[in-house]
């Protein structure tokens, strides 16, 4: 009973923090602050993974998303000229069109989420060694997507080196 309360409390706390991060990302005036809000959002998602018992996934989320991808995004933010203030030239028509579009997307997503049949698991497998299960699946059943993903990363790396090298 108390465990359920703690799990629910933890989930709602981190969900609120993730939403704060996401909203802050959009509303922040300074692009560096947006990057920091994104760090907050991604870290809260990692916390939710851990609450759900997906320990490997939570650690990898922090290691890859927050530790590597966000560092590169912050690098990119810091290396772009900061004095460029985008002109605030949006007419009322754009605001209305934007709001309608955002609302339509939200309603569609909410309808799909509420209408689908989510499987309920009755127990949290807290002692399953998730790393081993993920590893076995990744190298047996899902080895083709795995190899294609690594090929994709290799192509991106080669492309970046070719674009950035000195002539």
């Amino acid at each position, binding site marked *: 009973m108390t465990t359920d309360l703690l799990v629910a409390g933890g989930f709602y706390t981190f969900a609120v923090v993730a939403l704060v991060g996401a909203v802050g990302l959009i509303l922040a005036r300074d692009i560096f602050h947006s990057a920091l809000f994104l760090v907050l959002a991604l870290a809260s998602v990692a916390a939710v993974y851990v609450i759900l018992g997906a*320990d490997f996934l939570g650690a990898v989320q922090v*290691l890859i998303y927050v530790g590597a991808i*966000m560092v590169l995004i912050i690098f990119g933010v810091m290396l772009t000229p900061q004095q460029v203030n985008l002109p605030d030239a949006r007419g009322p028509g754009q605001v209305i069109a934007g709001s309608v579009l955002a609302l339509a997307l939200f309603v569609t997503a909410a309808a799909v989420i509420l209408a689908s049949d989510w499987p309920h698991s009755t127990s949290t497998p807290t002692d399953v060694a998730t790393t081993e299960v993920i590893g076995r699946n990744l190298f047996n059943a899902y080895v083709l997507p795995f190899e294609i993903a690594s090929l994709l990363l290799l192509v991106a790396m080669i492309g970046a080196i070719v674009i950035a090298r000195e002539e």
Partner: protein
Amino acid sequence: MSPPDCPSWLFLCNPFEPLRQLLLAIFGALLPEPLPAIIVTVLAITMVTTLIAMIVMSQVWAERRIVGFMQGRLGPNRVGPAGLLQAVADAVKLLTKEVIIPSLADRLPFMLAPLVVLVPSLLAWVAIPWGPGLAIADLNIGVLYILALGALPTIGILMAGWASGNKYSLLGGMRAAAQLISYEIPMVITMMVPVLLAGTMSLRGIVEEQSDLWFVLALPVGPIALLLFLIAGIAEVNRSPFDLPEAESEIVAGFHTEYSGMAFALFFLAEYANSFAVSAMATVLFLGGWLGPIFPPFIWFFLKTYCIFFVMVWVRGTLPRVRYDQLMHVAWKVALPAALAVVGVAAVQISLSLIPGGAGG
């Protein structure tokens, strides 16, 4: 989860187990189910954090004295017997200084940056086992957890460099971030060697698998992996000879130029706690953690970790600071291929069962 068996004749093998059982029994009688374990864990975390603070003080003293002797002079020896209270004096000085926030600084990231650097290094101590059953949490993804926490201070350093509003800080921050992400890769790959040899990512499991043979002696991959891990580890904690981000003679003080008083104390604390964590990880992964005859296990743990820390101080006193392009060259063209080769050789050895000592999950 019961702690591994301590031999009955070894006094102080696990000194905290009776206390833990007592506290669990007391709280278990008063509170519903998951709360006693949570409260005992919080108490353990408080204890470990205090212990880390005291260890950092001893590290500060040891480093200044040892580097002093290596440079042909005595280190600080006036404050307290043999200068042992020097760290206390430093702490008092830093606590009483005014924390100045520059007018061009971005206030909230400026104040949060030391925390983003310090908290992951303290969090890493949750998983490291001081002795049999003496880890706050025996995570079955121990190694991955430590790696994930090692990636977080980079963001703190970038925040500090950017939010200071000072071009020297920004330079220091960018250099630090580039150095940290470059050396993270050899470190991650090298840490996979003990995981391969032990067959588990749990730190307690890795120590227990070394009861026949320490992984550093699993030739030929052991010593090379330890060497690479130490190089990457010293670069990850921004210590000399890799302390370009805080190079005092080049860019004032790099990313922590604008920090004074308590904020600087937090960076200082984070650097020493991090270097002790790297030493502890080297001990646990390669040198058999708390294994050893006769003495209580946590004594062995401290002994080995302090030996590795002494090697780090020795390297600091001996080698000059590397240049930035040399740093990047070593990371990408030397350490990374060497780490990949070591992992490859280790994997081949395990699949052919050629590891001395019979390790290999």
